[in-house]
């Protein structure tokens, strides 16, 4: 099982041309080859690694996706699923050209089952669209990675987000899938039933497989009742260590906080300027959100205030009204853009590490020291309740030395996290940027992943070059 597999080659131009011709004949103006559309589909929001697909097709049904994949399968041409392109790790770059399947027109909410607390959506539905659709039902879908990503993309990358502490990640919230396999067959995995111990867990295997094992076209999602009461609060700290230890203490006590976000002084400074937050200092800061019954929220926040006071935190600043809350979270969600605005002309890439909560303080403080040592601008922000944080590294794209410094820091964050029993991808996935780190972290298991990839996609047409290194790098 350790046999190396040759790196995939680009399909021959005449094969691609013939396939593009067939797609154009079949799908008309839904099969687009003009450069600007292809460029737009060649990258996500991460570092610029654009690799253009040969054609972008907009299917509208499972059957169309299956038919396109069958054509690609017959011609051995790569096929890459695309949602709205918010990925940060180069997941959608068409490294070997091929067909980009833009699923944004598969945007229907197929069913909402209030009694069973679940719903079924097409892959192109975005999370904001779903929640707008659910308005009035008393239900909501909690996973919130910041970007208004499609649910198909979130499932494919096993997205998490600001409230994973309470609601889990996509792993816990996808009940079933409809997928198109590499040979163009439609299968349904999982389903309406809340539990099953029948067969291997294909649902979770496909969740997080980044389009390399199958193309997700429909998702059955778990929904939650809108909490009776929601309150958000901000608390500021003299230093990063005391903010982090507050989080650790809260998690240890098992306070069911819906969200805890950390922003270091640099990030807080950026957010204050970018989002015009008033009355805050550029100090390490925690954002909290509490969900529950009124009494429950009251109790959780009292406990939390005791802990923050013990760690030298300021008094809570409350945001109880929905518009105040959304201003606060909007500032948090715009952290990446706020960081970019700190140094106009620079580019940013965000690392994504996750460590066991007991090692969080060590990992954050060592990372901070590394950044200071290298004299870089790199704010820290994170969903620290589950040990997940991001370092947003700002570097000058025209200065190779600056870029190398940034990459060095990022590599050290990954190896530091792994050495502490953590992982180099808390929620952004592997894509093309973290293939090496995956090998470092998983060792033998990577062989198994490779064998599974070969078993489910023997021709290597599904998003080739991503997620699992198929060449023998190790």
């Amino acid at each position, binding site marked *: 099982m350790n046999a190396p597999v040759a790196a995939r080659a680009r399909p021959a131009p005449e094969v691609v041309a013939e396939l593009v011709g067939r797609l154009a004949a079949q799908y008309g103006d839904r099969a687009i080859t003009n450069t600007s559309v292809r460029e737009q589909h060649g990258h996500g929001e991460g570092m610029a690694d654009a690799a253009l697909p040969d054609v972008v097709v907009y299917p509208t049904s499972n059957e169309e996706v299956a038919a396109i994949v069958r054509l690609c399968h017959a011609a051995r041409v790569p096929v890459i699923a695309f949602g709205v392109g918010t990925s940060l790790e180069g997941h959608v770059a068409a490294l070997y050209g091929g067909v980009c399947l833009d699923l944004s027109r598969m945007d229907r909410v197929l069913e909402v089952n209030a009694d069973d607390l679940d719903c079924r959506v097409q892959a192109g539905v975005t999370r904001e669209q779903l929640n707008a659709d659910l308005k009035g039902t008393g239900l909501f879908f909690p996973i919130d990675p910041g970007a208004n990503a499609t649910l198909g993309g979130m499932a494919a990358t096993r997205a998490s987000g600001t409230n994973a502490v309470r609601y889990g990640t996509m792993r*816990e919230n996808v009940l079933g899938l409809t997928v198109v396999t590499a040979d163009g067959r439609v299968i349904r995995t999982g389903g309406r039933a*809340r539990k099953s111990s029948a*067969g291997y867990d294909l649902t979770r295997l496909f969740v997080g497989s980044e389009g390399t094992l199958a193309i997700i076209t429909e998702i059955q999602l778990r929904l939650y009742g809108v909490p009776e009461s929601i309150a958000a609060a901000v608390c500021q700290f003299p230093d990063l260590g005391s903010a982090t230890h507050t989080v650790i203490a809260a998690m*240890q006590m098992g306070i069911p906080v819906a969200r805890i976000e950390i922003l270091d002084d640099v990030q807080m400074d950026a957010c204050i300027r970018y989002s015009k937050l008033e009355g805050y200092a550029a100090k390490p800061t925690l954002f909290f959100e509490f969900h529950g019954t009124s009494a429950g929220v009251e109790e959780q926040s009292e406990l939390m205030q005791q802990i923050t006071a013990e760690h030298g935190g300021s008094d809570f600043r409350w945001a109880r009204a929905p518009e105040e809350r959304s201003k606060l979270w909007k500032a948090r969600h715009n952290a990446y853009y706020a960081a970019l605005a700190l140094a106009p002309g620079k580019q940013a890439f965000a690392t994504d590490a996750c460590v066991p909560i007991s090692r969080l303080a060590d990992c954050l403080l060592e990372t901070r020291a590394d950044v200071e040592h290298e004299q870089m601008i790199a704010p820290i922000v994170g969903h620290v309740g589950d040990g997940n944080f991001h370092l947003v590294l700002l570097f000058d794209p025209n200065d190779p030395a600056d870029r190398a410094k940034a990459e060095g820091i990022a590599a050290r964050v990954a190896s530091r996290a792994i050495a502490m*029993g953590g992982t180099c991808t808390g929620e952004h996935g*592997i894509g093309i940027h973290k293939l090496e780190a*995956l090998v470092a972290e*998983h060792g033998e*298991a990577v062989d198994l992943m490779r064998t*599974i990839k070969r078993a489910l996609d023997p021709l290597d047409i599904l998003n080739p070059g991503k997620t699992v290194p198929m060449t023998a790098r190790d």
Partner: protein
Amino acid sequence: MLDPHVQAQLAAILPPAALLTAAEDTRPYECDGLTLYRERPAAVVLPDTEGQVVQILELCHLARVPVVARGAGTSLSGGALPHAEGVVLSLAKFRRILAIDTLTRTAVVQPGVRNLAISEAAAPHGLYYAPDPSSQIACSIGGNVAENAGGVHCLKYGLTVHNVRRVRGVLITGEVVEFGADALDAPGYDLLALITGSEGLLAVITEVTVKLCPKPQHAQVALAAFDDVEKAGAAVAAIISAGIIPAGLEMMDQAATRAVEQFVHADYPLDAAAVLLVESDGTTEEVADEMADIRRVLTEAGATEIRVSKDESQRLLLWSGRKAAFPAVGRISPDYYCIDGTIPRRALARVLRKTAEWSAEFGLPCANVFHAGDGNLHPLILFDANVPGETEKTIAFGDRILELCIEVGGTVTGEHGVGVEKLSAMCVQFAPAELERFHGIKAAFDTYGLLNPGKAVPTLARCGEFGKKHVHFGALPHPELPRF
């Protein structure tokens, strides 16, 4: 019979008492909790180190000898049924709790550790392991992972797959692999989820890191009586759709409560057609709030009586009836057959009605206990294997219930696994395209199919034959409904 050469090599790996080949020594391993099926293995090995497991598997791989891993042997689907020419690899000696990390709230344990022993070890730290199959005093955590075991509290706290962080296992080739990570999310394919519920077909588990939960400050259970089974089913749906996720939501019908009452005297209302047990846990205030909501919903749903536990001893007494349901039914009937199917909650009333109709048609009483909150049914069909024809009737009745589960969009097993018991039912639930994927995954881990052969996933040939014998399976009713 084991090849003498293989036997000699096994003997060289293991201390003398850890290799059993004589009939009287291997007989205790001939079946698990599903006693309908029995097979004596060629040998039983009882290693006590991971190094020995690696050597045993390497040897069996080279010699092409089937290996069936076994924990406590409490499987209800024949997951640990031996292979006549194979080796049973018992993990009974792996029973150490290696570490408890109170900060990260995890425990690292060996696979032979009993489910309840983890909670007992974590108790001094105010923590516990949430999944609680009814067999928790006996069943082992390795088996729980292999079967993705559930339990009464899974509605709120999730199944085994939601409560395991990391699993260390040995492949049939002898390679040691870590699945998952100590941190929240491991990158790459979710092999941890793949291993969980794989019924010993992919790897032999040698170490498990489980999540621990803080013990809730307070818990209360409400017992609600209903004069009609369908009303009770509707009450379950009403609770969930009111946005309440109780810590436990269990239902028992009259046949079950009557059996239980004679056994544990839990003071259940015997005139009720069905009772619900609804548990709330959390801080005192949260429980008080949630209990008030639960009471309101139950009243609106037509409960004829609602009792809420006043203290811990009352709470445990009310639960004792539910937890003792299987042995209680065992006392009133010579034999019983436990069915395990899961359905979308909304179909509960319909499935219960049909079950009652078929019970009358077959002339076999059926006691219903189930994890109603997540739609996991355990109808217990009462029969007497000594009455000619009753066993066959029982199996036919059970098959009908499972077919109905699939028809309404459910699955043929909620928490007991497929094992040997439900291989044919898998042909109904899964289409060939899905079964081919399963076989591809199996082959990726175990090229020669040596780990637990003949379990969990049927061959396509078997499904082909099964389809021929049972023509009505070929054409599924309601093809538009989601399967499983």
